[in-house]
């Protein structure tokens, strides 16, 4: 019957994720029962080797991290395109090879552009 497909192959994945969360939560809950809890203001300040922290921790950080994140999206999507191509490669033959070379060539232009712009240099 259409619309009633149940992906039974993935049932063990669900089970293992449930067991893993049970282990994590179980460890935390078991900890509550036995550990001491004696907080005071100094203990709860951020670690700074004993000095009071100066300024906001999240105020500024390098814009490089944003660039890396964007490049990651571009290149990782490209890698994902290659997976089905690689699995079906025997059936695609010479056509598949030429198509992927074209795809990689376009990508290579972008890669060289990004490199020349200096996105890979951390100064």
């Amino acid at each position: 019957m259409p619309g009633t497909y149940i992906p039974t192959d993935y049932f063990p994945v669900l089970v293992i994720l449930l067991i893993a969360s049970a282990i994590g939560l179980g460890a935390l809950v078991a900890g509550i029962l036995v550990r001491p809890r004696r907080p005071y203001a100094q203990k709860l300040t951020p670690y700074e080797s004993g000095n009071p922290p100066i300024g906001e921790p999240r105020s500024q950080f390098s814009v490089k991290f944003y660039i890396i994140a964007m490049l990651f999206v571009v290149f990782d999507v490209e890698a994902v395109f290659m997976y089905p191509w690689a699995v079906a490669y025997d059936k695609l033959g010479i056509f598949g090879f030429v198509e992927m070379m074209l795809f990689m060539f376009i990508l290579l232009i972008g890669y060289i552009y990004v490199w020349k712009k200096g996105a890979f240099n951390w100064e």
Partner: protein
Amino acid sequence: MSAAEMIGIFIETLIVVSILMLHVSYVVYFERKVIGHMQCRMGPMRVGWHGLLQPIADAIKLFFKEDIIPSQADKPIFYVAPLIGVLAALGSVAVIPMWEGFSIANLNIGILYILALSSVGSYAVILGGWASNSKYSFLGGLRSAAQVISYEIAMGLSLVGVMLMSGSANLSDIVHAQAGHWFIFTQPVAFFVFVIAIFAETNRVPFDMPEAETELVAGYATEYSGIRFGLFFMAEYAGMFVMSAFAVTCFLGGWSGPAFLPGFVWFILKVYAFIFLYFWIRATLPRYRYDQLMGLGWKLFIPLALANVVFTALMKIL
């Protein structure tokens, strides 16, 4: 699927995960012993015979430690970050084939599943670092996330070579495709890139930048204490175990080996040999500088992995 089958899967998974947890705690012991002997020390010796009960003592200690939550922390995210790490690390083990015909979930997209979960693992690090609201944690979390995503591309591309050779993304099929010769011999470049990428993925020396104790205290885990820190620690070692098993499956022939030992024993031996490599390198190499690390990933390993894909595809067509 009947109820009996479901319960069977549940028990099977529970057994595998329990054995994995035991391994994870003893991998820590193994590491301390290996590093100790490489530095002409004995490693743990006090708790039990040659320190064999040390991991258990450590776990009990972590349970009894106070769980300090900084007053400025983003509490819900702070609570949940270590759980994400454990979930991602333990979840990946589902698709690893351990002997002929056995893996918890025999998915046809095994490679993709492991890559996806290892990306989820980086959320634990960045969320933990963000939620702690401390400079060291925040920097550690950012660095780690940037490092993990950079090396993930190289890792994914190096596996394209493996998929080209085997024509499948199912890990059992990949082991079968290595019946003649292991992919470490037919795909040496991919193996080289892959090994270095998983060292960066699991934040191990020489790429343990996020936890560089000399500059960032403990990186993203600075503000974590007690069992929450323990969960991060567990996730790291479980991740190391899974990545070693992944490397053994994709490049070192998985469970296959001469018939005098059963497949499972071969699999475990290879995984431990690979984990030994992790410790050996930790005892040998100094840490990379962060700019060198990022430059290496983007300028060397990604082109190298792409060239390997082109070369493999060309060889297959000829």
